[in-house]
């Protein structure tokens, strides 16, 4: 009897191992372990055996049944994996076809991206961001900024007018006065915004953007201006940049300076490695980026004192600096944009290059 069981086991083992499909394996399971199969029959008949045989036969038969079950199970898993693998291979695609594009992300306009970059630099230096109105009165745009009543910038060739005393602001500087009227000193603000002047060519558009800076406290010096703008220049144009202040003239700052950044294209040398003149700075080694200065004391006297800004701005007690930089110019320098008009044409091929 035991011999017969061993025989069955050996035969079943051989056949299971040879089974090549799930169906064939199922047939084998039925043949060896099904209700009518020999081994279960044998097990059912154990009780009828001689008592001395019962234990040994029962044990062998049970072990064999369990072994076969495990064997079939293992074989089934192997066959399933094979079949899955086969199905997957049949499902092959041409992986050299282009991928399915994800939902593409858009872009910020290069001027917005540049303005944010600049705002963030000055936020880091402790400035807050204010925004002003684009339509201004002559009072804020010129008078309070110490422009003489006959200053040429007031001319209709230089300023857009909505009426005799209302203009499209020609700079972000009117917000200097409005900011001081709204807040007492000390004051540290930057003012980004759109401004307007009647010019139109490759380097001038009738609308453009500026970022104004204003810091007023009891003791802000020209050296502080230099330090602040050096931080800006290094942040925007690179750690190795230097700046230089050149004396200049603006009605609302005194002393006034123009600020140059050492050229990042030629490292301030003015010429390239091959000896040719640097195309960006035209051989100067410096790029003009902004105008600045110590706030002219006359400007403080135009700031009206109210509850909001008390004690107000006494020119003998406060001093500070201001600057105005052109956003288009900075973006133009950073990205090599040749024509300012591109900024407002909104050609997708332009927009997708930045931001």
């Amino acid at each position, binding site marked *: 009897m035991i011999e017969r069981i061993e025989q069955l086991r050996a035969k079943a083992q051989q056949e299971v191992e040879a089974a090549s499909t799930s169906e064939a394996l199922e047939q084998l399971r039925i043949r060896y372990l099904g209700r009518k199969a020999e081994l279960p029959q044998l097990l059912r008949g154990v009780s009828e055996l001689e008592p001395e045989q019962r234990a040994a036969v029962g044990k062998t038969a049970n072990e064999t049944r369990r072994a076969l079950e495990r064997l079939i199970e293992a074989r089934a898993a192997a066959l399933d994996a094979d079949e899955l693998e086969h199905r997957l291979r049949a499902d092959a695609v041409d992986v050299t*076809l282009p991928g399915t594009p994800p939902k593409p992300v858009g872009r*910020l306009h290069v001027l917005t991206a540049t303005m944010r970059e600049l705002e963030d630099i000055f936020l880091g230096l402790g400035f807050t961001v204010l925004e002003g109105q684009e339509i201004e009165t002559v009072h804020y745009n010129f008078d309070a900024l110490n422009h003489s009543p006959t200053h040429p910038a007031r001319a*209709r060739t230089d300023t857009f007018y909505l009426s005799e005393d209302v203009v499209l602001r020609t700079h972000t500087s009117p917000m200097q006065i409005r900011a001081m009227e709204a807040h007492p000193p*000390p004051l540290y603000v930057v003012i980004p915004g759109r401004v307007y002047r009647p010019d139109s060519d490759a380097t001038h558009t009738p609308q453009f953007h500026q970022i104004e800076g204003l810091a007023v*406290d009891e*003791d802000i*010096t*020209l050296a502080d201006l230099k330090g602040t703008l050096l931080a800006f220049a290094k942040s925007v144009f690179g750690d190795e940049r230097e700046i230089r202040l050149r004396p200049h*003239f603006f009605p609302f700052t005194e002393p006034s300076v123009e600020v140059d950044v050492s050229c990042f294209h030629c490292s301030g040398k003015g010429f390239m490695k091959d000896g040719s003149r640097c195309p960006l700075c035209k051989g100067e080694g410096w790029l003009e980026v902004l105008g600045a200065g110590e706030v002219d004391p006359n400007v403080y006297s135009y700031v009206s004192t109210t509850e909001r800004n008390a004690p107000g701005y006494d020119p003998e007690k406060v001093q500070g600096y201001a600057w105005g930089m052109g956003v288009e110019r900075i973006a133009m320098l950073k990205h090599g944009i040749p024509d300012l008009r591109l900024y407002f044409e*909104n050609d997708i091929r332009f927009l997708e290059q930045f931001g």
Partner: protein
Amino acid sequence: MKVPLSWLREYCDPDLDTAGIEERLTMTGTKVETALRHGVSSVECFVVGRVLSAEAHPDADRLRVCSVAVGEAAVAEIVCGAPNVAAGQTVAVALPGAVMPDGTEIKAAKLRGVPSNGMILAEDELQIGSDHGGIMVLDELILDAELAPGTPLADVLAISTDVLELEVTPNRPDCLGLYGVARELHAATGASLAQEPWSEDPGSEGPVAEAQVLVECPDLCRRFTARVLEDVTVAPSPPWLKARLSAAGQRPINNVVDITNYVMLLTGQPLHAFDLDRVAGARLTVRRAREGEPVETLDSQTRLLDGEMVVIEDDLGPTSIAGVMGGARSEVSESTTQVLMEVANWNGPNIHRTSWALGLRSEASARFEKDLAPEQCLHAQALATKLMIELCKAKVLPGTIDVAGEALPVEAVHLREARVDALLGMHVSRARQAEILQALGFGVSDAPDGLEVTVPAVRRNDVTREVDLIEEVARIHGLQRLPVSLPARRGAYGRLSSEQRLRRRAADALVGCGLYEAMGWTFTTPSLADRLRLSPDDRRRAAPVVENPLSEDQSMLRTTLLGSLLDAAAHNTLRGMPDLGIFEIGTVFAGVAHAAERRAASPLSETGVIERRALGVVLCGRLAPVTWGVPDPPRADVFAVKGVLEAFAHALRVDIDCAPGEQPFLHPGRSASVLCGERRIGWLGELHPLVARTWDLDAAAVMEVDLNELIALAQGEHEYRDVISFPALRQDLSVVLPLDVPAADALLAVRYAASGLLDDVRVFDVYSGPQVGENKRSLALALSFRAHDRTLTDEDVAPVRERIVAALRELGGELRG
């Protein structure tokens, strides 16, 4: 302002090369825009020659074959085409190897078969004059020099000089004269400064009998001086004068006119020479022009003046536009023998206005408009008189006509030593302060706490306060010496306002939706309102109007972003990029109600214009790129643009709704008002085909909302809500409703009926067809229930669901399946 360096060095000659001078001037406030070489770049091979013989060319009537001595023993054969060449002349010669100012190299060549080894030069060829009528005959032009053949030409003529082109700031008209620049250079380098060129005056004060001047508008003419010179010989100027004028960018005319230009270039003060014999009545009157009065100017054009312009007239009427341009009638000519030399001072802003209004800018107006000092008149008179005597053999008649207001006082300004440090953040000693100010022409004396400073006349308008003196000290001492520091920033901390952060978030959300940000023009055209089919009373027609626009097309301020967004869409479509999604965040403008009253109440600050920040979107063409997997992606429609609105409203955490709402430029059946609670904050929809057509677009989906309002309603900060501890219970509900019940009404009814436990409800499927019957549609709703303190069961929500079903029945709905 062009400054020939060789001329400048006559007054201040620092031990620096051109680049060194350029650097010093630039870094002290007189920016050198460019430094150029005027004349020849190398003086090699330019020599003095003597024409030994000049024979007719065998084969050319106009050419001569000349033997020219060009050295002690050297003779060059040169073929010359000038009509005036003759044996015995001393001439300027360019030998082979010489490079002309235009870059041409002179080479030995054959001209009509005859060898020619050089070129005999005319003055214009060397850029030292404008005459091309013949060669320069040096022995006639230069009387006081030894001109041996072979002498380097540069020893005799100024054939090469560097020229600095300066940017002179408007506060420094003194630097519109070369002597003023020399003074700057003196202060900037310490090199000595030559005496003022006007320090000797051969003329005299006192009345002048031969001419009369009457000034009727002393407010616009602050000083008028004149001298009479007789026995004037009008002739070409000597070479040195022509060369200097040419290098400074002025065309030599004749000695009288050249003297006026030369004196102007040196002193900064313009002059005008009248032919006194052609001044009718020998009398000049300065007066305001009459409205529409015509004047013929030197350029032979007739200009119409207005009542704020000033003319100078004689007994026959106007001869010049004061300070801007002289007239043809009394111009100096070759036959002139008596000159009335006018040197006047005009009101700067008035001159600026006149020259801009007439489109007539001259060297004179460019200086007068900056407000010169009246004292400068006599500087120019002195120098001009001296040169008229020297160069025109003129005699100056005694006296000077001088119609002037009261002499202006010399202003004194106190400079506290400590203020310099305090403002600059850099120490400059009192002695150094004094040294700098004196070098710049200021008078300086000691005061207990600093300096007492007097201001020279030519700096009177620019320097009036202590801070102005500090600027002078700073720029000459050197801004490169400033240390680098940061302000104390007391109480300062940098952060964006909540509104600014939300605005950034809105833009970022739109970028995340795949849109490109555009920037359109603030300026728009009056025809936009018609293109958008706005009704006559649409408030968007009431755009603020620019009084002085660059063109009619840019004469209004936009009241909507739609125009510029459609322009951008059209631009890209026309260039083969019809699939696009763009947005803009920008200012739109409107007049305020009662603008005039409000302006009257607050004239300094009230503009009468409302500015609002708007957000606009335009979608055109396909919403996704065509790929091999998706060959026909969906196209932009009302739901696409609404999806964009929902995405960015979600980013801002604002609840928005849409209700049917028409706009004249939108498809009437596919347009909506955007609502935020009760407030209408914008619109969206598909563009009306008639509007799309005027931009050459097939179709577009567009939107505009008031970003100020949206952001005001946005929730910037947000408190934590526990939606994690207990899961939501989700159920679906399908309801058949009459077609005319908007989905929003159904959702509102559901929310209203459910109250507490309903967390969210949305439509996830819409079906209409035979199975649901005519004029009906089925909406599939996804309901999500949630309690904050327990996990809900179907039994918990059963009563809520019943209420929802009842509410939908009231709308005419029936549950499906």
